[in-house]
């Protein structure tokens, strides 16, 4: 087990190295931009998985934190000089705002059962969307505004590398987080909250921590996203962003950190090609329907996702317990 674990790390290093070299070999602008987009959404999807996959809470308000990061960065770079230090400062400010809001919202709503919590996050994020639309002096409403990115990012490659570094750092940070005793408690909460409570854990406290961590990471993804477009409008706060994160997590595999990354890759590539197809075949103009249908089918028939299914196959072959995605509904299979 130990040696396999290290093998995984080596494999990861090779992939990261290959991705880092990629823009130096290929000068395809489309691919650089597409990969940057995939990395950004991987960060978002991983943060969502901390909630859905590791703690077992469904939040429909995740776009709210993504949007906070995006707006903080956009507004600061727009109002002040667009320097690199301002960019990093804006990321940190965005994270602090996201942490405070996620703490307050979490404290208020996480006491509730899954149903209520999902509804309330939806309502709260709806409120933020309306706020952004009405506060026109700051956000320019639905039209949004463009802003200058730091000079340093004139070269798309630098930004690509920065995002890749962020992705790797976030991955290792979150892996450390879920493998810590605290992360193990979160998994216990997912598996059986009542029992975890009986063991003396203040589950609310752990759930709030999970939601704050997820909020902070989502805000980072938002900041990067805003800079990648050099434009921001209220679409960063809409349900679509949350749905994308949700879909990536489910397709990739809930309860794994690699899963959301792979899911982000699959979804972004599919979106890219489907919207390309829409230019030729009008039927693909409503490609979101296909996503909706795939999503429904995935929830029913493919609940482990890509990575989860592979891990489960490994587990079945070795017939011993693995760390990994154990969906709440099927946990009996793995509970032995």
């Amino acid at each position, binding site marked *: 087990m130990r040696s396999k674990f290290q093998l995984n790390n080596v494999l990861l290093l090779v992939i990261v190295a290959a991705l880092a070299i990629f823009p130096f070999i290929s000068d395809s602008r489309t691919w650089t931009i597409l990969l940057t987009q995939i990395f950004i959404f991987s960060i978002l999807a991983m943060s969502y998985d901390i909630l859905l996959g590791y703690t077992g809470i469904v939040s429909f308000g995740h776009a709210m934190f993504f949007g906070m990061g995006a707006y903080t960065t956009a507004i600061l770079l727009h109002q002040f000089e667009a320097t690199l230090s301002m960019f990093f400062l804006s990321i940190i400010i965005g994270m602090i705002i996201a942490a405070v809001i996620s703490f307050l919202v979490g404290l208020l709503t996480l006491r509730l059962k*899954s149903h209520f919590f999902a*509804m*309330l996050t939806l*309502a709260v994020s709806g*409120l933020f969307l309306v706020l952004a639309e009405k506060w026109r002096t700051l956000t320019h409403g639905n039209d949004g505004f463009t802003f200058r990115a730091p000079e340093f990012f004139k070269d798309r490659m630098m930004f690509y590398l920065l995002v890749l570094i962020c992705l790797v750092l976030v991955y290792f940070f979150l892996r450390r987080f879920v493998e810590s005793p605290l992360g193990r408690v979160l998994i216990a909460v997912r598996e059986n909250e009542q029992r975890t409570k009986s063991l003396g854990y203040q589950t609310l406290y752990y759930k709030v921590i999970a939601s704050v961590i997820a909020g902070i990471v989502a805000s980072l993804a938002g900041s990067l996203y805003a800079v990648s477009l050099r434009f921001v409008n209220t679409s960063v706060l809409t349900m679509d962003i949350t749905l994308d994160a949700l879909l990536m997590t489910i397709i990739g595999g809930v309860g794994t950190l690699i899963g959301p990354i792979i899911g982000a890759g699959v979804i972004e590539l599919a979106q890219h090609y489907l919207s390309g197809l829409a230019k030729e075949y009008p039927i693909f103009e409503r490609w979101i329907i296909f996503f*909706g249908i795939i*999503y*429904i089918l995935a*929830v029913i028939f493919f609940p482990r996702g890509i990575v989860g299914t592979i891990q489960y196959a490994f587990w079945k072959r070795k017939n011993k317990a693995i760390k990994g995605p154990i969906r709440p509904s099927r946990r009996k299979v793995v509970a032995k």
Partner: protein
Amino acid sequence: MELLINLFINGLATGMLIFLLAAGLTLIFGLMDVLNFAHGGLFAWGAFSGVWFYGLTSSFTIAIIGAILTGILLGFITEKLIITPVYGNHVQQILITLGFMIVLSEMLKVVFGPNQIAAKTPPLLAGSWEIGDVIIIKYRLFIIVVGFLVFGVFQFILKRTKVGLIVRAGVMNKEMVQALGINIKRVFLYVFMAGAALAALSGVLMAPYSGVIYAEMGMEFAILAFIVVVIGGMGSFPGSLLAAILVGLAGSFMAYYVPALSLAVNMMLMAIVLIFRPQGLFTAKG
């Protein structure tokens, strides 16, 4: 005084529309323990099909009946395809009904086109009465009457008929009802169809009220309905009525006196209720 009456009527009418939407939601949740995130989609389908029927026949009665039938049909499909596989698993229910919501609202755009559609008020209900300085818009009064009527009918069915007895017993103890030889699955199906019909009815009534209908309206109003259900207490029919009226009135008065806060007023109401009574106003069991 006249102003207060006007604001009151406006708030009550909005509240009644939200009640019709929330009633279906709370009915489904109360019996089946399913939170239907696709409820807003059924609402929007009610609005679009109602307007379509109205354009076709120019009879508002037929429009309402058509919308309700659409709701019943969609409710049947939803329960059979989407809800049945995920009974008893909350997380999956949330995920799958939300996915279906996307499909429903995108299908709207496929069938009726992506643009906003104008909805006309039927001539019989257009216009208003003026009593002194009080202006009573006929359509709003009509909505209030329909809202109370629906509340009365459902309350009668739930409390006074055998069907209602079965449903209420099902809420208490599904297994026992099943053991008594009643097919609880079929009861679930009928309840879901009734809830969907209420959503569609709310949609078709909303159309002339707001003047235009668009595919995104489902989610917008679903959020309001969620707020109402949380305030009133999940699964409580009278709770939903009271909370909907409260939300409607608060919105109407705030929009006049403190416009800046009008958008946040629902959230504030909900936050206050949640802090003091997390289970909602009307739920006895915590």
